[in-house]
Structure formats: C-alpha cells, structure tokens
C-alpha cells in the first residue's frame, strides 16, 4: 500500500555513508562461493551438446554410443523433458511461453541458432562427458537461416516457426512470418504536430546485439534425491524465479525444489532466466547423483541472451523556439530465436523524457537465428534512445540551440503526460539537466578532432514482491535476511537501512540472502527494484521489532508501552514520565529476551508500488583519430536522479558501471556472424568489452530528488545510466568529425569509413 513514509527533514546517520560491503572480504580473498565453486560428495559432471548449425531440422538423435561409454551416468534430450502447452503466460512484455522455453533449454523439432542445446551428458569426469558428446549422432536437415532483423521481416525470409502469425494486428495476418508481435503507443494528432514544426528530421539507425558481459559464466549444481526432493545451487538474479521456471519445465512441485543462492559474478539482466538448471536437475534425477554444469565463455556468448539488436526510423519535429511538437518512430527489435524482445519497453521509453503532445511509437518483435534475447540494464530503453537522442541533437543544431537547453525546454516533470497514458508522478529529470548545465566541465574548450555530445534517458524502475526477516541476537547484534540476490551491493544497503531504522551501528547488522526454503518469495534482483521494494520490507520488519522492543521495555519497567519511545537504538521513557529508568539498549533488551517473551524476530512481506522512475543526463567529450577512426573517450559527466543514495559509493559505482557498459555498446561490442550464421567472435578477445585503459575517470553527479513513497527516499539506480551513452557518444563524434554515425558499434573501421566517405 502506498504510504508517504519519508521524512525529508530527518537527519540520517547511517544511510548515505559508504561502509565496506559485507561480502567484500570473501570476494577479494577468493573465499566467496559462486555457482561454480559448489562441490558435493559423489558429484559428476554435465556437459551440453550444442548445434553447429544456425537453422536445421533435427531428424534424429542417436545417443547409444555415448550411453555405452564407461563413466557416462545419464543422457537427456528434449524428449526427456515434459512438453508444454503453447500459450503466453503473464504480463505482455515478459510473457512466458513454456512451449518456447523448454525448446530453448533443449531443442526438439529444430535447432534455431548456432549453440542451441540439443542433448546433455553426465559423466564421472568432464573429459568423459566431453568424449560422450562427441559420440552423440544428430541427423540434421540444414535449413536456410536469417540473422538480420530487416531481412527476417521480409516476405520470403526463412521462417523459424512455420505457423507463427503476428500478434497485435487486427485482422490477424493470414500468412506466417518472423514477426512475432506488433505494438503501438500513440497520443495526439501526428499530422497536426508535424505541420506545426519548423524543422523535421527523419533518420534510420541500427544497433547491434550486445551481451551483458558478466564475468561469471552460468553454472549450477543439482542434487535430486531418491525421495524426490531436489536442491539446486545456482548463481542467478533470482533464486525464486529459478525455482519456479525449473519446477515448471520439469513438472515438479515447487515445494520439492530448494534453490540455494550462490554468489553471482554479474548478471545485468542476463541471469533472470534459466539455461543449465533444468538440465542439471534432469541429469541428476536420471543418474541419482549430484550433477554440476558449467558453461564456457563460448557457450555464454553463443547460447545465452544478449539484448536485442535493432533497426529503427525516428522522425521528430521541433519549432524554432525549441518545442518538440511531434515524434513518430518505428522500432524493429531482434528477439533472437524465440519471441520476447524488449521492444515494448523501447517504445514506451522512447519519448518518456519529453512532453510531446503528438507522438507514435510502433514496435516489432522479430525472431531470427540468434540466441534468444534476455534482459539487459533498462531493457529496450537504450536502443530507442540511440535514435531519439541522436535526432534531437540534429534538431538542436538546426535551430541553433544548446542540446541541453532543448532537452530542458521539453523535459517532463510531475504532471507531464506520457505516450502510454498516465501522467508522470515524479520530478527528477530537469534536475539532471540543470546539474550538467552548471557543471564546470561542460564549458571546457575542446581541441582539434574533439567533440562533446549529450543525451538523456528514462527507466521505469521497479517495485514488486519482497520479503525480509529480522532476528535480534542475544548480544544485540542483528541478522537481516532477504530473498533478494545481492548483485550490486544490496546486502550493504539492507544493513544500512536496518541500522538507520533501529538506531544501531552498521557493523552490528549481518545482512544475508536466504534460500528459497528459508524466506518468503522475492522477485528477481532486476529492474532496479531491490533497494526500493526489499528495502521497504526490511524497514517494516525493523519497525515491527521496534514495537516489540518497546513492549519488552514497558514490561521490564512496569509501564504502558505508550510511555516508551525508541530513540537512537534505545528504549526510553517519554519525556515527563514519572519514574527513574535508564534507557535500555537493544543489547540490554535482547539479553533478557527469554524472560520477556522469547526470540525477538520479525518478518515483513510487501508487493511494493509507488516506485519512481530514473532519469539520467550525460555528456561525453571524445577525440577521434582521423587516421584510424579510433574514438577516445576524454571525459564523462553522468548526472542521475537517485532519489536518495543509501550507500553513496555503490550508487556512484552503479552509475559508472552503466556508463562503461554503454561505452562498450557504443564503440566496440557486436555479434559478428559469418555467411553460415556462425558467431565469429565468441570470446572476450574478439567480443571486446571496455577495459580500464579505455576509460577516463567517470564523473558522477548524483541528483537527489527523494521518492516520498520509500522510507529513505530511494529510487532505483542500476539501470537508467546505460541509456544515454550511445547517443551521447554519437553526438560527440558528429561534433568532432562532422559525420553522423547511425549504426552501432561506432568502431574504428566504421568511423574511418564515415570520415573518408
């Protein structure tokens, strides 16, 4: 329920500081247990056979020779998993179709991309498992393939699904295509809006599919007992969702599957789905032994979800005075081999920063012979922003207006309309623009071959279901447990919020992530929801404990609970109360827990709404080498509304991390396919993510416009920072070279070709 819980006048002692994270020492000393580190007695090794073809019909799979190999304990194919009804379940953007999902886990009728899993073997050693894979014979009928999204949409393109009819078009098409869905958001009168414009720019853009680039490949260990009870150790962004998907795919009761959250080596959205977990459970069930599966980097790049590449056309009209009067765009997103790109998000976010009276955003979700796309930081928003924010830059030049000024003149605030219906309820965007306008670096003169580009971005942020428990130990220390996987430092932020609420030092709080049998449901760590939603649950649990403490103090003092307040970690008598009792600390009350009623425990569960969106505005100074086309990032200033920073340094780190990933997306990262549809750069040597030497210091400006719906005013900080970089860098390159880059990545060969062209 929405309650205005924040007191903006309250002076905070712990929230907003930057203590060492609880998981820091284990991680830097190598003691942290990641998914690949779990070893169980009797454990055997699973490996997965993957398709060498981009598109082929599976005529038969012969596993007999592999099964006969000594040391092989189990083999599974798609036929060993229960099939599922063809239906879309759940919210439209993330609608799950288990008919599709089970075919992505292990192919059935067809393989749809190079690297598509076909069969899995569990053996006593990894070498034997690999040897067994080589003995599996798959008889393929190779089919024509299609990689590019525009090619996939053409009539006559090879069809991944011969019966797929585009959803969202009425009347429904009568012929199948690779277009899984069409959607549209529109407001106002486009013709009227463009008629009012003094300048109109229409331009087409493409973006490349890019991987989240998490350092830790997917891995898990499964143990399926003879009693039908199963345990799974998995690194993911949500062990409850891993449990739900795995149980559903295998036809298990959810209660029979316990998922332990391993430490996670990065996710960025890519670990909100399952790949190896159902396979490991199936192999363990069949073999009767614990099974570990670890992906290689090549597996990760070939078979797990990148975010979509896209093709788009953006048309925007503006008056000479700088009012954006109309916008009309079409976004075509690669879904990968199964429907489900973030095109809806892209269409909804495209104009969300701006008050535009007439707009339309049309989206297409298109399948092609690539791995199924997965979420990646603010999924969809960075893609549409590349087009929209590039066109705005061109328009600003045409009307002779500073690009920040143009954005400021059209910036949304609370009460501004959105293209998808409701009004904005929160401020925060204008403040990010003002922060850059005032920033001294924005005035630094540029040299030869140098340019400065700005761009802005929007992301919804998240709320949703979270649970937390709080235990007060007998010495007054506190344990906070949640079911939210700690991807970006949430254990620290939960401890900070608990310490602040209880009035105790940060180091008296131990913050943990509990397994699926030890706490209530928590949705994934994604969408920038945990500090908000799980934070609310933690604070509610703390407040329940405070009430309990007040009651116990009242019992000890023989007074009414109404005569007891909680202040600075102590129960105190209200001012003016007759009596002489020294304040009781949390530790003092905890020491008498037995006689005052037993263990001091609280739990809270929420389905949190009222989250506020994230806005970011950034500028980049670049220098382009006219001889090589190489773009050097000289300076980055990234302003973002964080609501209120709970852990100051981690907020800064989130923003810097998003910027770095955006720089990679802008300048280098792409999937390179050969003519046969094989991925040519499935490794970090050839799929080039940014390294420290590519980067300048990233100057972060945290704007704090608190969200009154959160106890401390927090807004999600993990996503919106990746939205502006690609367009901002393109805008900077244009200023440096006079050439407009419309295709990502803006790698040296492309920039050089533009300069020479």
């Amino acid at each position, binding site marked *: 329920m929405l309650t205005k819980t924040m007191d903006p006048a309250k002076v905070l002692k712990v929230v907003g500081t930057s203590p060492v994270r609880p998981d820091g020492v284990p991680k830097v000393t190598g003691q942290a247990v990641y998914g690949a580190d779990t070893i169980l007695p009797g454990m055997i090794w699973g490996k997965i056979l993957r398709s060498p073809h981009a598109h082929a019909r599976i005529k038969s799979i012969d596993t007999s020779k592999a099964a006969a190999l000594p040391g092989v304990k189990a083999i599974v194919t798609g036929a060993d998993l229960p099939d599922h009804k063809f239906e879309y379940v759940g919210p439209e953007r993330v609608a799950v179709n288990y008919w599709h999902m089970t075919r992505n886990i292990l192919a059935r009728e067809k393989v749809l991309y190079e690297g598509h899993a076909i069969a899995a073997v569990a053996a006593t050693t990894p070498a034997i498992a690999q040897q067994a894979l080589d003995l599996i014979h798959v008889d393929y009928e190779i089919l024509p393939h299609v990689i590019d999204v525009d090619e996939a949409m053409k009539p006559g393109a090879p069809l991944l699904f011969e019966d797929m009819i585009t959803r969202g078009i009425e009347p429904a098409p009568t012929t199948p295509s690779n277009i899984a869905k069409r959607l549209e958001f529109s407001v106002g009168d486009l013709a009227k809006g463009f008629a009012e414009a003094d300048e109109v720019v229409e331009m087409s853009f493409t973006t490349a599919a890019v991987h989240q680039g998490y350092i830790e490949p997917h891995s898990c260990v499964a143990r399926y007992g003879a009693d039908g009870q199963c345990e799974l150790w998995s690194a993911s962004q949500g062990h409850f969702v891993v449990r739900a998907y795995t149980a559903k795919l295998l036809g298990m009761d959810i209660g029979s599957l316990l998922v332990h959250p391993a430490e996670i080596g990065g996710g960025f959205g890519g670990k909100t789905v399952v790949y190896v977990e159902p396979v490991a459970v199936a192999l363990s069930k069949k073999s009767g032994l614990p099974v570990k599966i670890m992906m290689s980097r090549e597996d990760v790049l070939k078979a797990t979800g990148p975010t979509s590449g896209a093709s788009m056309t953006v048309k925007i009209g503006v008056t000479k005075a700088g009012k954006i009067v109309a916008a009309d765009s079409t976004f075509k997103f690669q879904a990968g081999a199964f429907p489900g790109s973030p095109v809806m998000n892209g269409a909804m976010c495209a104009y969300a920063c701006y008050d535009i009276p007439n707009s339309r955003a049309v989206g297409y979700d298109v399948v092609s012979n690539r791995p199924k796309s997965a979420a990646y930081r603010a999924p969809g928003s960075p893609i549409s922003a590349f087009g929209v924010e590039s066109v705005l830059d061109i328009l600003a030049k045409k009307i002779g207006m500073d690009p920040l000024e143009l954005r400021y003149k059209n910036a949304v605030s609370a009460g501004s309309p959105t293209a998808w219906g*409701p009004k904005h309820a929160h401020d925060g965007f204008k403040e990010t623009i003002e922060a850059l306008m005032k920033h001294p670096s924005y005035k630094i003169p540029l040299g030869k071959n140098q340019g400065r580009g700005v761009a802005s971005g929007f992301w919804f942020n*998240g709320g949703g279901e979270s649970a937390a428990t709080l235990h007060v130990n007998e010495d007054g220390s506190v344990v906070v447990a949640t079911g939210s996987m700690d991807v970006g430092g949430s254990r620290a932020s939960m401890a900070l919020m608990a310490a602040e609420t209880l009035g105790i030092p940060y180091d008296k709080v131990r913050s943990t992530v509990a397994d699926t049998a030890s706490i209530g449901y928590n949705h994934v760590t994604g969408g920038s929801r945990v500090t908000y939603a799980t934070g609310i649950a933690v604070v509610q649990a703390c407040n329940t404990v405070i009430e309990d403490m007040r009651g116990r103090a009242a019992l000890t003092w023989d007074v009414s609970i109404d005569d007891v307040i909680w202040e600075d970690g102590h129960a105190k008598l209200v001012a003016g109360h007759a009596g002489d009792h020294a304040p009781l600390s949390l530790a003092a009350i905890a020491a008498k827990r037995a006689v005052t009623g037993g263990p001091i425990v609280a739990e809270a569960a929420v389905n949190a709404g009222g989250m506020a969106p994230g806005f970011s505005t950034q500028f980049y100074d670049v220098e382009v080498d006219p001889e090589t086309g190489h773009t050097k990032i000289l300076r980055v200033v990234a302003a973002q509304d964080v609501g209120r920073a709970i852990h100051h340094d981690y907020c800064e780190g989130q923003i810097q991390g998003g910027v770095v990933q955006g720089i990679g997306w802008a300048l280098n990262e792409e999937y390179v396919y050969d003519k046969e549809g094989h991925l040519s750069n499935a490794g970090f040597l050839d799929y080039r993510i940014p390294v420290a030497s590519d980067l300048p210091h990233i100057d972060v400006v945290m704007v704090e416009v608190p969200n009154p719906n959160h106890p401390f005013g927090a807004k999600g900080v993990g996503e919106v920072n990746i939205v502006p970089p690609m367009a901002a860098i393109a805008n900077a390159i244009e200023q440096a070279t006079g050439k407009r880059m419309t295709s990502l990545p803006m790698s040296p060969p492309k920039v050089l070709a533009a300069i020479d062209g």
Partner: protein
Amino acid sequence: MTAAHIVLTSGFSRRYTNGVKEFDIDATNVRGLLKAMDQLYPGLAEILEEETAIAIDGELHEVVYTQVLRPGCEVFFIPRIEGG
C-alpha cells in the same frame, strides 16, 4: 463514494471491452475496482490482475487488492514492465 476514472490501453479495450477505453467506477480500493469491472466484463478482472500494472494518478503499482483509491483519482491499467 466518488468515482475513480479508469483508462485502459487501446489494445486492452479492443480485446476485452468492445473498444470502451474509459470508465468511471465507484471503488475505494483496487479490489472493489476489479470487482466492478468484472461485473461489466466478466473475466476482465483476472486478465488485468495477470497482465497489467496500474498507475494511480501517475504512481506505478502492481495490482494489489488493498491499494487505496483516492476519490476522483485517475487509474490507468498499463502493460507490466520488468527490467534487467
């Protein structure tokens, strides 16, 4: 009781309410709202619960029965968003 003003997306209204996009419904919380809409269009409540989020005067929420509706508030049912 003062009515809340309800708005559906074009897609939802086309599929489920014969194209009617806007309603005024007397309800003090989301449960009451869904119940009233389900009486108008049987089965709609379950679809809205499953597939949408709501924006109440612009504030985004999951569909939660106990969510209070301020008299005269504007309620949009919009597609639910998930992130990375």
